[in-house]
């Protein structure tokens, strides 16, 4: 797998790889720095909920009382009612100068109330807080039940107030794109550019078989993917240490959550190489490989939208790299690791088979 072609690939491409690794290091170390600020502002926002109090009907009564702290400069208040915390289907339940309202409970399901203060008619109202008819639930946790979030988190309740949750949602949501698309680009171009720049004739006039050529290029991709992962581990661990959060977040979790994406990246590399030998053009190969990565991502996201669509997830490679299981549940799914590794091997074998059949264009 590793040989002179691998070495040459790394040698000629080292500048690009270096720049990319520096980018990974900076982003992965600094994204964590945002966490303390993010937590503080989120806490402040959630504390807003305490400024609104909701008195639920006792066993005999049916009346609900909603009251809130008056806000300075407020000319009037507005209460929105919805069955969801996201307030997408809200209707206005009250509008006036009172700081408390009482109304009859004539529903069974859970309701949310957002209280807002109107300060100036010309500008948007300011949120005072949110209250819900069922106590004990963190409104943010409710928000996470939103299918879009569930797509990211695998249905786990992930708190953005903890560094684990923050890293899971904020770091990994861009990491797959950054690393995945870079590997997609590299794997297509290291092979297709040999076609386009007429290097293949000389290359394959040496006693290098097509299989060895492809495997060595794949070897180079593995080395680069591993390097990116190591740099991200260093960056993330460094970032966590600098905000004194590494203890909350085990070093093993940092490592395993990223190591788990190695076979994920290798599948993308194998697809890139397959398209490169199939189309023998950088542009076409790149287009198809990028489309593959995004299609897989959407399959996974759509699969999270409803139970009946869940099967879509099983055909997405994103389903087999569960970083949140490692981070939140301390569970490294080695079975998933094996599935992706086998898939990568199968794709490489197909790539070799196709390459051996194809004419080298002049």
């Amino acid at each position, binding site marked *: 797998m590793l040989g*002179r072609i691998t070495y040459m690939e790394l040698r*000629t491409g080292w500048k690009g790889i270096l720049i990319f690794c520096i980018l990974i290091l900076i982003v992965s170390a600094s994204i964590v720095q945002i966490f303390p600020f993010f937590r503080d502002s989120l806490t402040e926002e959630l504390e807003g909920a305490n400024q609104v109090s909701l008195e639920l009907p006792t066993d005999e009564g049916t009346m609900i009382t909603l009251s809130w702290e008056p806000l300075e400069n407020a000319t009037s208040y507005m209460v929105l009612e919805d069955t969801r915390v996201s307030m997408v289907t809200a209707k206005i339940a009250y509008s006036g100068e009172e700081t408390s309202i009482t109304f009859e409970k004539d529903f069974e399901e859970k309701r949310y109330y957002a209280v807002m203060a109107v300060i100036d008619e010309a500008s948007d109202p300011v949120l005072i807080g949110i209250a819900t008819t069922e106590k004990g639930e963190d409104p943010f946790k409710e928000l996470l039940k939103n299918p879009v979030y569930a797509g990211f988190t695998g249905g786990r309740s992930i708190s953005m107030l903890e560094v684990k949750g923050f890293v899971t949602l904020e770091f990994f949501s861009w990491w797959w794109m950054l690393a995945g698309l870079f590997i997609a680009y590299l794997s297509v171009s290291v092979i297709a550019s040999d076609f386009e720049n*007429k290097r293949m*004739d*000389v290359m394959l*006039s*040496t006693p290098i*078989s097509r299989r060895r050529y492809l495997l060595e290029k794949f070897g180079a991709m593995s080395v680069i993917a591993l390097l990116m992962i190591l740099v991200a581990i260093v960056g993330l661990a460094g970032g966590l240490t600098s905000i004194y959060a590494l203890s909350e977040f085990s070093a093993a979790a940092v490592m395993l959550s990223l190591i788990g994406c190695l076979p994920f990246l290798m599948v993308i590399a194998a697809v890139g190489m397959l398209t490169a030998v199939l189309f023998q053009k950088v542009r076409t190969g790149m287009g198809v490989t990028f489309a593959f990565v995004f299609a897989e991502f959407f399959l996974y996201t759509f699969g999270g939208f409803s139970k009946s669509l869940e099967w879509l997830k099983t055909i997405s490679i994103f389903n087999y790299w569960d970083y949140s299981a490692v981070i939140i549940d301390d569970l490294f799914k080695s079975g998933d690791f094996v599935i992706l590794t086998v898939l990568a091997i199968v794709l490489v074998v197909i790539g070799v088979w196709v390459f051996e059949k194809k004419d080298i264009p*002049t």
Partner: protein
Amino acid sequence: MDQEKVIAIENLTKMYGNHVGVKDLNLSVNKGEIMGFLGPNGAGKTTTIRTCLALIAKTAGEITIFGLDSHKDAVAIRKKTGYLPGDFGLIPSVKVKSYLKYLLSLRECKSAKKMLALAERLELDFDRKTHELSKGNKLKVGIVQALMADQELIIMDEPSGLDPLVQQEFYRILREEKKQGKTIFISSHNLAEVESVCDRVAIIRKGQLVVVEDIRVLREKTGKVLEVEFNDPVNIDEFKIKGVSEVHQDNDRFILTVHENLDDVIGAVSNHRILNMTLKTYSLEQLFLKYYEEAENRKRGGK
């Protein structure tokens, strides 16, 4: 006794969809000879060469090189073969030396001695970056890499574009290689270019082999075209001498096709004041016409 065949091509056909690349081609290259492979652009020279090297798959026919199947034993064949593609790219932003050393290592050759010697003889600058090279220098890199690993068979696809002095040195190198028992298969679209170095020539046109001929026979058959312009009127009959097959007059300009007896012809020409004179080898097109005419005549005679 039969000579040892290094390349044996039998009934080779290569189709690109409906388009014929090469059709029913039979050709063999003997050990220790320099075989020229001539034909105009698009005749099928590159296709033939690239099927030999298994860069493209053949549609039908057999190719054996060193007695091995060109497709199944491609890697074994390539261990003993050096190849210069007609169009080839270099790895950008590496030095010529690193690139050649890289290819040397891929060719499993440990000694860089020959590479250095070749580069010096061809005046190739080792420390230049590959993307800075001119076309001629790129070709030199290609020639060096084809020869440097001391392989038994050397296949070159149109190595033209060197400046004349380097070209002469290149041919000297090829002749030396031949002396060492190497077999060389070299394609060109220009007869004059390879004439001085080849032992035999195979001519291909529209994917089909026209003829394989010893270079001496070819020279005798085809001869030269002498174009002379005189200062004063000259009678055309003066050139009806032995060895001149055709005379064409255009005022004071004469075009003579000469097969032999060149000294007598020059003697006849020098009886007059000459304004201008050129002596050219047959062009490939003229050569084809000649061979086609011959084939046609033979057909008619046979009836």
